[in-house]
């Protein structure tokens, strides 16, 4: 039982088991999750790429595993995958940097 690592790739296979300790919420979550990824106004492939980019900004190893595989399965090329990750990275670094305006505002307010 005792794992030596916080993250074990084999744990991803157990994701479905979270329902066992809270049937109602678990089932609701998976129903919702399944619906979200159905083909809709966006294709399943577009959704997979969004998920891949978000998996990276969330830095969730399970999601990275899952959506790399899912993207390959949907015929996404590695160039497309890398571009998607750059979009995530750009937003993330942009989000850091744009807060620089807060710092600038504060400095301007504090300094005479």
């Amino acid at each position, binding site marked *: 039982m005792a794992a030596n690592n916080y993250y074990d*790739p084999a744990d991803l296979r157990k994701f479905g088991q979270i329902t066992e300790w809270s049937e109602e919420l678990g089932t609701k979550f998976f129903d919702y999750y399944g619906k979200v990824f159905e083909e809709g106004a966006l*294709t399943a492939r577009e959704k997979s790429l969004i998920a891949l980019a978000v998996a990276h900004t969330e830095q969730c190893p399970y999601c990275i595993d899952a959506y790399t*595989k899912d993207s*390959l*399965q949907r*015929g996404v090329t*590695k160039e497309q995958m890398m571009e998607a990750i750059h979009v995530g990275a750009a937003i993330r670094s942009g989000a850091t940097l744009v807060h620089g305006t807060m710092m600038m505002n504060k400095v301007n307010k504090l300094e005479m």
Partner: protein
Amino acid sequence: MSKIKQQSLHKREAELANANRQLEILSNGIFGDGELPTFAKKIKETNQFPLRPKKLEILQINVGYMCNQVCEHCHVDAGPDRKEIMTWETMEQCLDVIKNTGAHTLDLTGGAPEMNPNFRRFVEEASKAGIKDFIVRSNLTIIRANKKYYDLPEFFKKHNVHVVSSMPHWTRGKTDKQRGEGVFDLSIKALQELNAIGYGMPDSDLRLDLVYNPNGAYLPPEQAGLEKDFKHGLLEDFGIHFHNLFAITNLPIARFLDYLIASENYEDYMYQLVDAYNPTAVKNVMCTNTISISWDGWLYDCDFNQMLGLKVASKVKHISDYNETVLNDRNIMISQHCYGCTAGAGSSCQGAVTE
């Protein structure tokens, strides 16, 4: 990451060249200790055990394991170094069967079937039997491999052969990674030649279908969507037409099994297959309507069982004793590789088996 190997497992005398060793692997480990249910146990859940044939529709004849390519995922372990080739004598026995069969489809496969020295003679004779659908599984590059094959498209046309060819992607990178350097360009050229004489054109009776199988340890996507992508990609970039795309799951045997183990993907892949198990697909798995004949005339439930050395569980085991009625009354031999046929929409040599 993986490299294209230049030799078959047999030539390399690799451990997995041995079919029994493959069967051991498929029965031990995660399936041996009950972590995952065996295929037999799984189909028992829906009362589908033992698996039994329905009406025979397809005779699939493997005329030899020799191939001009050495694709990494090959379930035949085919390659230029394989010497197992059907003799004319066995072909004559096949022809007798073809003349009397109730099957509506004849499906020639290999290796590269065209490399059998008696291939053309066999096609000429077999086409006289008046079978409704006569398929040759051609890997496309063979058509450009050597001058003596350049006229294959015309030859196929003359005998109204239905050409089914593998094409792993509509972009160069993915195709060459799976099948070897230059395969994409040669395949494109071959497809253009087939199109030029009418194969695969909209409204043409000269059928040209493509087969896709994933380039690694993941499952194929939904077939209809992928067909659209292939059609769009091949038409836009190369002006190529084809009829249908079959999305086929890689079964964990032979070179693909070797790859799964070497790349430490085996367990995850088996989990994927078991997770994607679809009881509806079981009803239509290929072995329920197909008989597979090997280069040396033995009979099998499917080409995969042929590679695993699992002969039919019937009194009739060889083409020399062929009897369709006796043969159809049998239980199908199964193991964990069968999960590859029942994942998602299911998989067969004709692609998905459910809508």
